[in-house]
């Protein structure tokens, strides 16, 4: 396999993207989970799908747009969706989870409409749904590297603010932190990571990479930094293991990655039980 990676550019793209996403998604995912926003990731990925369908439609309708990378509009829609979710959450203060089905079905509805206008697409869209190894281009890779670098830099600079906001929002407000602005930056980061992860794991499975490794670490992490470390390790094991397995067994990479993450989760629950019973 190593020689194949050295020989084929598309495999290099897939592996490098995978390694980036395997760390990035769980890293942001830790904050998503502790802030009880897991479902938001799911809703946003469906909005991103609408962006991709729209981009494919543009490509089909206007020859001049043939080279447009669908990830741009995917990211744009995802960020737009995240802002809309925030708006809905503030309008329905006592029913904050309402924002999720609204955005999720809105995203799917838009996607369906774009598909019908375009009179159907080729296999491209399927690749975005479930993830694809062969579809990752060099431009995709650079785009994802760019997103990853910006998200990681913001993550490090805002880490202590994000931690306080997640742990105790009231205290964050009382200490005079610009809570709204920080939350806004965070939700945009989530939207960008979702769009960046779509290529490899697919729209339908993106949120799993943000949540399952985190759920596994929750079983035994004592502290927050420890939890981030475990989550990233589990994310990487899932992505790299999933890509290798899917290459040899000719399986869908997204599905394989998610199933490995689920196996790690089950193992960590069993380990936690065993430890408390015999400790």
């Amino acid at each position: 396999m190593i020689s194949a990676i050295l020989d084929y550019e598309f495999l290099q793209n897939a592996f490098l993207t995978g390694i980036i996403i395997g760390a990035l998604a769980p890293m942001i995912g830790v904050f998503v989970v502790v802030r009880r926003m897991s479902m938001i990731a799911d809703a946003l990925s469906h909005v991103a799908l609408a962006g991709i369908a729209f981009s494919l439609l543009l490509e089909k309708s206007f020859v001049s747009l043939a080279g447009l990378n669908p990830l741009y509009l995917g990211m744009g829609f995802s960020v737009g969706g995240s802002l809309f979710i925030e708006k809905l959450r503030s309008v329905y203060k006592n029913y904050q989870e309402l924002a999720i089905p609204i955005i999720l079905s809105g995203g799917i509805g838009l996607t369906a409409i774009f598909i019908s206008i375009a009179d159907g697409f080729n296999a491209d869209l399927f690749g975005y749904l479930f993830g694809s190894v062969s579809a990752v281009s060099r431009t995709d890779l650079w785009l994802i590297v760019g997103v990853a670098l910006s998200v990681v830099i913001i993550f490090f600079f805002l880490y202590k603010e994000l931690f306080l906001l997640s742990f105790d929002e009231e205290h964050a407000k009382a200490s005079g932190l610009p809570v709204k602005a920080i939350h806004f930056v965070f939700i945009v980061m989530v939207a960008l990571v979702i769009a960046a992860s779509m290529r490899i794991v697919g729209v339908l499975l993106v949120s799993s990479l943000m949540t399952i490794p985190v759920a596994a670490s929750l079983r035994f992490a004592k502290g927050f930094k420890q939890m981030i470390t475990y989550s990233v390790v589990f994310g990487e094991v899932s992505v790299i293991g999933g890509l290798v397995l899917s290459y040899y067994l000719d399986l869908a990479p997204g599905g394989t990655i998610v199933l490995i993450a689920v196996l790690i989760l089950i193992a960590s629950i069993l380990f936690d039980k065993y430890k408390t019973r015999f400790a």
Partner: protein
Amino acid sequence: MINLNNNSNEPIVQAKNLSFKYAKDLVLENITLDVPKGAFLAIVGPNGSGKSTLLKLFLGLNKLQKGSITLFGESIQSFKDWQKVGFVSQKANSFNTGFPATVFEVVESGLTKKIGLFKFVTKEHKQKVKKALEAVDMLNFQHRSIGELSGGQQQRVFIARSLVSEPVLMILDEPTVGVDSKNVHQFYEMLEMMNKQLGITLILVTHDVSTVSDKVTHVACLNKNLHFHGDAHEYNQLTEEELSEVYGHDIKLLSHNHE
């Protein structure tokens, strides 16, 4: 805490003619209250008497509707120096006990505002965290997960989180809710130590009137209106009739050593 400034006698918190409504419900009416430097003020009153609302006004979490508040001589509307003000809330309301954070990480988060945006935690900051944990006698628990601790221990950690930013004024909203009665006494002794030895001005909203009345310097009785505001000694002289006027029908819930 020697203050050579000749303003040192100016009250730390000054509230004038405060009124506050939630929708149409008037919760606070015409409250005027001074908190002198170095005071340990207990605000007592029945449920729904507006105690927490008053605290939230002091903290800038509720918007001022009528009247004025001055913090450290400055109007609350222009007040920016929030790191001088520590806040400890009812623990049960504000955090998820399954949150994966160590005691150290929780206390460190108290420095967030002080360190400032886009800056990192340094060794000196970590040293401060350790000192704050030492002050509340929780240093041995620094690597433990916050969710594993008892209610009383958790509340000590939250006090340390406030202490770490070296506040001049600390505001506590019923901090002993969820702390078992055995540890409540110890908890108040710790507050007394902070007040007397560290010179921190304390404002405490509480139900345990009898437990605190010998530790605090001032008492304010609130029930929409301010019924009594004076030093703790005067408060202890109040007769049962006067008290029931303050508390209304809730007097039985709030024993006052008179039974």
